[in-house]
C-alpha cells in the first residue's frame, strides 16, 4: 500500500513564525507570506492587543497552530482544559493540524518552561503513544510531534533517538514535525551522522519542517533561535527535501528578532531551495 507523502497534509510552501514584533508591519504592509505559524499559548484565555492583532492578520493569512506546553511526555495527567482550549483555537484560526514537541515541560505540576528530553525507553514510548491518541481524539485533527534539541540524554540504553521517535509516530499513528536544525544540533552535540538519522525516520510522516539558527553556549550547540539559519542546516534541508519532496518548511526566530524583511528573506530562500531540490528530484535522469 502506498503511503501518502507529507503525512497526507497539504504542502503549504515556506512560512514564518508569527511574532508580536511584526504585527504592525504585517497588518500595514501585508507582505506575501504563504503561512504563519502561531503559538496558541500566546493567545489562549487572552484578549486585547494580541488577540485583536491575530484576528486582523488571520483575515489575510493562513495560520497554523504550534504549541509549546502540551508536555506530551509528562507523567502529570494531560491538561484536558488546555487541550480543549487548543482545539477551540485551532477551530477558530482554521488550523488543519496541530504540532507540539516530543518532550516534557511540566512534571510534578511544576512548569520548567523548557523542552526537556524524555528517556528513550519502551515505557516512555507506550506512555506517549497513549497520550497522543487522546490528544488527537480531543483535537479532532492530526498531531505532529517535533523532535527536540537535547543537551542530555536521560536514557538511551534501550533504544536510539531515531527509534524512539519512529516507534511513537508509527504506534500512535501521528505525524512528525521535523526540525532540521535540531537534527543538525543533536548530531553535533550527541555525535552522530545527521543524514543516517534522517534515513532511519519514517519520513512519510513528516508534514512540516522547522529551520532556525543556533549558536555555541557552555560547551554545546544551543538551539537559540536567535541567529540566521546555518549554512549546514540548509545543506541538510536539501537532503530532507530530496527524500520527502515539497512540504511546509518554516523559519523560526524567537530571540533578538530581526526585521520582518530579514525573516521573509530566509523563508524565500527556503522556498527557492525546496523548489530547486524538488525539481531535481522529479526530473528524469539526463
Amino acid at each position: 500500500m502506498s503511503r501518502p507523502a507529507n503525512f497526507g497534509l497539504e504542502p503549504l510552501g515556506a512560512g514564518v513564525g508569527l511574532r508580536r514584533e511584526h504585527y504592525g508591519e504585517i497588518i500595514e504592509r501585508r507582505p506575501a507570506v504563504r503561512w504563519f505559524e502561531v503559538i496558541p499559548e500566546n493567545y489562549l484565555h487572552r484578549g486585547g492587543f494580541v488577540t485583536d492583532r491575530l484576528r486582523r492578520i488571520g483575515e489575510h493569512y493562513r495560520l497554523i497552530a504550534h504549541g509549546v506546553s502540551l508536555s506530551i511526555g509528562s507523567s502529570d495527567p494531560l491538561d484536558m482544559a488546555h487541550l480543549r482550549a487548543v482545539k477551540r483555537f485551532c477551530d477558530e484560526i482554521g488550523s488543519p493540524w496541530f504540532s507540539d514537541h516530543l518532550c516534557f515541560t511540566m512534571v510534578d505540576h511544576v512548569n520548567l518552561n523548557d523542552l526537556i528530553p524524555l528517556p528513550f525507553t519502551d515505557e516512555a514510548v507506550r506512555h506517549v503513544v497513549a497520550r497522543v491518541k487522546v490528544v488527537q481524539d480531543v483535537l479532532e485533527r492530526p498531531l505532529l510531534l517535533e523532535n527536540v534539541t537535547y543537551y542530555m540524554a536521560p536514557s538511551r540504553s534501550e533504544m536510539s533517538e531515531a527509534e524512539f521517535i519512529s516507534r511513537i509516530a508509527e504506534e500512535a499513528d501521528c505525524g512528525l514535525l521535523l526540525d532540521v536544525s535540531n537534527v543538525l544540533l543533536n548530531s553535533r552535540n550527541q555525535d552522530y551522522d545527521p543524514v543516517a538519522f534522517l534515513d532511519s525516520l519514517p519520513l512519510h510522516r513528516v508534514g512540516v519542517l522547522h529551520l532556525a539558527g543556533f549558536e555555541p553556549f557552555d560547551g554545546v550547540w544551543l538551539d537559540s533561535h536567535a541567529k540566521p539559519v546555518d549554512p549546514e542546516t540548509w545543506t541538510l534541508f536539501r537532503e530532507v527535501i530530496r527524500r520527502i519532496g515539497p512540504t511546509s518548511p518554516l523559519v523560526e526566530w524567537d530571540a533578538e528578532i530581526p526585521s520582518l524583511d530579514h525573516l521573509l528573506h530566509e523563508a524565500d530562500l527556503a522556498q527557492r531551495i525546496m523548489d530547486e531540490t524538488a525539481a531535481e528530484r522529479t526530473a528524469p535522469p539526463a
Partner: protein
Amino acid sequence: MALAGVLSAIRQLVLDGPPPGGDAVQRRADLAQRFPGLAPRELDDLAAIPPERIRVYTRLVFAGECSLLEWACPLSLAAMHALAREAGDRRSPRELGLELVHRMHAHRPWRSPSVRELVANFQAFVRERCADPLARWSGLADLVDFERTETEVFYAADTPLAPVSAAQLGQMTAMSVGELLECRVARPAYVALRRYGFDVAAFAEQYRGVRPLPSAPDPPSRPWLAACGRAAESGAPTWMTMNGPAEWAALSACGDDAPVSLNDVAAAFLNEMIAGAQAGASPIDEARAFEQFFALLARCFDAGVLLSAESGGR
C-alpha cells in the same frame, strides 16, 4: 521505578543542580541516595549524564524565567537592583535577577505556562521574601503591583462590550443632560482601580528604558488614585489618574462588566462630593460638578476604563 520517578528526578536535578561531581560511579552513589526509588538501570542512565549537560538546562530554565520577568516587570527588577546596589551588592542586574528567580522558584514553583501566574508569583515572593528591599523603599510594593496590574490588564480576556466610538461620543455631546444620563456604560472586569503611595505612572514614564536606575528611588510622595484600562486602538494598558474621592466613588459604582446608567455613576460622584463638602471642604457648585463629571467620562472612555453598554458600539 516508573517513568514518573525518572522525570521527577530530572526535574530536581535541573532545578536543584546535579550531583556535585566525581566520576560516574560517585555520581551514581549520590543519585541512589537522593532518589532511593529509582531502579538500578535508571540510576545508571542518570549517572551517565555529564553534570555540565544538566547545568545547561538549569541555566536555560532560570534564564528563560528571568527574561520573562524582565519583560513583564522591568522597573521592579531595576528598582530592586538599585536598592541592592545601595546596600553594597555589586552584582549585575542579570545576576541579581537570576538569583531572585532561583529563590522565587523554590518559594513558589511556577505551576502553569502562564506569564500571569509567574508575575503573580513574583509579587507574592517580593511581599513574603524580600523584606530588605521593601524596608529600604516603601514604594517597591506599589511598583510591583503596578507592573502586575499592567500584565493582568494586557492579557485579560476580552469583554463583549465595545469601546465608546467617536460617533457615539459625538451623539452624546449633542444630547440633553437628561438623555445623556440615561446612557449605559460598564467597567470591564479587567479594569483595575488602585490606590498607590505615589504616582507610579509618572515614575514609570521617567524610568522606562533606563537600566540600571541611576540611583535608588525617592520615597513615596503623595497618594495616587488611578484606574488601569485598555486603550481602544492599541489595546495597551493605559493608566488614568483619578482626581479625588468623588471620581473613585463614581468608578467604584460601576460593577465588573455590569451595565449601569450614567445617572447612577453621576449619583455616586455627586454624593461623594456632597459628603466631602459636608466634611468641611468648600460647598459644591453643581454646574462645575457636572463639568467635572463629564470630563471624567471623557477620560474614562479614552483610557478604556468605561465601555459602552449600548448597542452600536465600535
